[in-house]
């Protein structure tokens, strides 16, 4: 009797347990078919890209706001809200290169149903250039004198000076068109309390904001007014932030809770192990981002007081090009890629690494490490280890360099291994790492910013927006050297001052044909890298994760990763 009862109870319990397990497994957090779940672990804090230049905010806004033209993954411009790209050939760009005429597509409307007009285009320019707004994308509108709107679909940009490369304003995810009706009340000085507008901009994109929680999550619904029929394919997008790259990768590759995850900068072996499960695929794309070393051409010795690290005192060691070349020869860039980036990195010897037609081959010798040649160069430059302590010296000065960078796992690994290589050629290295919020901050009172460069060697990464590096290459002009006079602002970190280089940047500003521009870009790049003022290390790619079942993704290094999200869909099973 007792046994019978026990059996009955046991079987009842096990049936319950099994059904509960099934119920649990059934609803195991797999997203519904119509909903696209994206993890962007650096959670967006605003959807107005003009108030934040941060990639996380710009990318999120790109689901809603669109520019006149985008840049495709191959680096080519594609007309987006515009009918076509204005060029000299089709008459869109005037012969004097001082005006550019964009024509909007016919029948465009905002997600609220009202028509998109050239007035919105002109307003966007006025908004970003308004005094007191602090527009993060202001540089995109440099040199624009006026925007005329002869009719509802035509916007004519008038430049103050001839502009051979006019495609910066309204091109790419950083400068989309805002709706004038919505943002007009947010022009300064009233512009401080426009949170609701910044959190839910009305756009033309495939999705519109349903709910925005800053630093947490965005829920977007399909835009019923979207211009392409049957798009977007997904009815809802949830863009979830928070956690870290590891939890984001886990959600796509292991638990299957998300369809897509951005910015998965993880240790290469860890990422490939997680992706090995077969539920997801790693997506990479290589754009202009490059990790490099800057050598200080000025003396950072504190004895110089305020003139420390200024051109008044050339660097006693690094002014010698042979020493700089030796430092470059001692590096094994392939090993660096393997340690730090894996599939998300490539060896590079250039500072302008992409688009392809800009990439030079003049410095390709840097790809192979040559310790012997480096030693010979240092000996030739007069550096010998006279006291047999393993560090070379000359005239009583030891060849010891201070090497600083921001605090970051990969960068500290790089520092340690570079120190090891330089020790092999008799160069001593003192390592230092500084919190990124101080190092990249522009606080003139801080002694530790990368612009003050109170060290001999520095490592960080930089890139340019869009596909034209003209503005990027102007970074190393004489007049961009950070100094006490300009409050230590300026982008010429190595303090290179070369009239020949400056003249080349002036020529680039006026060069009109693509061939001429490419030649000048390569020449400028070569000046920086073959003279070893900058030592390029790794061309870094974007790394994202995509679920197997998601199709239509074309990761784009030039524009928003979500540039073609309207076409993303689930693969039929």
């Amino acid at each position, binding site marked *: 009797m007792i046994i019978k009862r026990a059996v009955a109870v046991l079987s009842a319990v096990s049936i319950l347990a099994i059904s509960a397990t099934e119920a649990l497994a059934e609803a195991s957090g797999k997203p519904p078919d119509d909903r696209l779940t994206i993890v962007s672990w650096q959670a967006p804090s605003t959807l107005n890209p003009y108030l*934040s230049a941060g990639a996380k905010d710009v990318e999120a806004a790109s689901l809603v706001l669109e520019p006149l033209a985008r840049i495709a993954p191959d680096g080519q411009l594609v007309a987006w809200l515009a009918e076509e790209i204005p060029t000299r050939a089709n008459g869109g760009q005037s012969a004097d290169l001082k005006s550019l005429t964009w024509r909007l597509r016919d029948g465009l409307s905002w997600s609220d149903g009202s028509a998109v007009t050239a007035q919105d285009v002109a307003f966007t320019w006025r908004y970003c250039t308004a005094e007191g707004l602090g527009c993060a994308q202001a540089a995109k509108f440099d040199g624009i004198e006026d925007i005329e709107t002869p009719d509802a679909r035509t916007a004519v940009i008038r430049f103050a000076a001839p502009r051979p490369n006019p495609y910066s304003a309204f091109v790419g995810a950083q400068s989309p068109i805002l709706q004038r009706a919505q943002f007009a009340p947010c022009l300064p000085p009233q512009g401080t309390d426009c949170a609701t507008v910044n959190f839910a901009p009305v756009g033309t994109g495939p999705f519109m904001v349903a709910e925005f929680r800053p630093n*947490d999550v965005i829920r977007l619904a399909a835009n019923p007014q979207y211009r392409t029929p049957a798009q977007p394919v997904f009815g809802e997008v*949830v863009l979830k932030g928070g956690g870290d790259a590891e*939890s984001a990768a886990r959600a796509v590759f292991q638990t299957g809770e998300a369809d897509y995850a951005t910015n998965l900068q993880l240790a290469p072996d860890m990422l490939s192990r997680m992706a090995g499960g077969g539920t997801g695929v790693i997506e990479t794309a290589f754009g202009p981002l490059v990790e490099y070393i800057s050598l200080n051409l000025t003396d950072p010795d504190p004895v110089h007081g305020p003139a420390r690290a200024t051109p008044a005192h050339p660097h006693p060691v690094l002014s010698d090009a042979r020493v700089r070349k030796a430092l470059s020869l001692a590096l094994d860039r392939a090993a660096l890629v393997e340690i730090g980036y894996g599939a998300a990195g490539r060896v590079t010897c250039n500072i302008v690494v992409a688009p392809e037609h800009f990439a030079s081959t003049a410095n390709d010798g840097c790809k192979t490490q040559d310790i012997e040649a480096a030693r010979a160069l240092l000996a030739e430059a007069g550096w010998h280890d006279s006291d047999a302590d393993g560090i070379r010296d000359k005239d009583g000065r030891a060849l010891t360099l201070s090497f600083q960078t921001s605090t970051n796992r990969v960068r500290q690994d790089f520092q340690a291994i570079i120190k090891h290589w330089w020790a092999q050629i008799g160069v001593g290295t003192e390592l230092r790492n500084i919190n990124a919020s101080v190092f990249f901050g522009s606080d003139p009172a801080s002694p530790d910013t990368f612009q003050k460069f109170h060290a001999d060697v520095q490592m960080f990464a930089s890139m340019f927006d869009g596909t034209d590096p003209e503005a990027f290459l102007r970074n190393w002009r004489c007049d961009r050297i950070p100094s006490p006079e300009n409050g230590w602002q300026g982008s010429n970190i190595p303090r290179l001052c070369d009239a020949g280089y400056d003249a080349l940047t002036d020529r680039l500003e006026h060069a009109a044909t693509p061939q001429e521009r490419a030649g000048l870009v390569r020449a400028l790049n070569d000046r920086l890298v073959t003279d070893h003022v900058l030592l390029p290390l790794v061309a870094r790619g974007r790394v994202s994760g995509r679920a197997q079942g998601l199709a239509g993704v074309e990761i784009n290094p030039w524009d928003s990763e979500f540039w073609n999200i309207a076409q993303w869909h689930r693969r039929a099973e």
Partner: protein
Amino acid sequence: MTPGSGLLGGAGRASVTLLIFAVAIFALMELAPGDPMAQVPLSVPDEVKQEMRRALGLGEPAYVRFGLWLWQLCVIEPLTGLDALLGTQLAGGQSRILSWQARAPVMQIVASHLPQTLWVVGLAYVVGVAIALPLGICQAWRQHSVFDRAGTAVTMLAYSVPPFLSGVVLIAVFSVWLGWLPSIYDTTHRVEDWSDLWVQARQMILPVAVLSIQTTALIARYTRAAVLENLRMDHVRTARSKGLSEASVLARHVLRQSMIPVVTVIALGLPQVFGGAVVTEQIFLVNGLGHLLISSIEANDLPVVRTVTFLMAVLIVLANLAADVTCRLLDPRIGAHD
């Protein structure tokens, strides 16, 4: 002096404490290195960054910004709160404390992060306390028994396992391996019917479990020690020798006394609930106040950091007052000589 005036004095002291807090918080963050512009990509030119700094009000000297912040914190924000409640126009559209990252009122952002913090961290605290009290009492009552020894071992282990380990282990087992529970907390989920409640419960199981493990362990240890101490008291021996049942000895002569230190620990731990749980929130993407604080620190979003820190200070002071009041109720001798 009446107990009431003692509390009033306590409130006065609390206001002074909070003012000192406000000065200290502001000064510390002014002195700390770091720059909100460090987040802006290097492709943005320096001139533009200078314009952005000016737009954030960073051009003003520190004392002006401190005065403005204090004014906004103590006057504008409460008035705005009143306006929202009563539909009045007291604040008169004066500018509120704005986050530098989101350029939106800090209080609005705090409000959007509060629900998940209260749900997850608050529930974990309640669960933790609910398990810890009986556990600690039973352990003390049957000291040196197998139950006590096992309980001690388990609580010590639970207390020493950090959430970044227990969280990841639970995810590996229940989300990755078994696939039963979600590892991502969906803050947009709304509970409208029973099946929604089930979804909500499922997504809360793992983070609540991770968080309550630590609370349980800590409070169970305190409870056990407090009860043990009182069990040895003379009045308990007297009660037992009078022939009172064990239950009434425990309930009437031991627990009331023992609860004084335990209530203090529970009350003082309460502000931590509002501070969120940085690590656990990060693991499960709960994105409550802990996440808000840490992400704002990373982005050098000082208005958010100092406002959230100040709110924490307010809650700690309030929790202290609450602990005082509760202890006075439990033992009228406390505060009788104020």
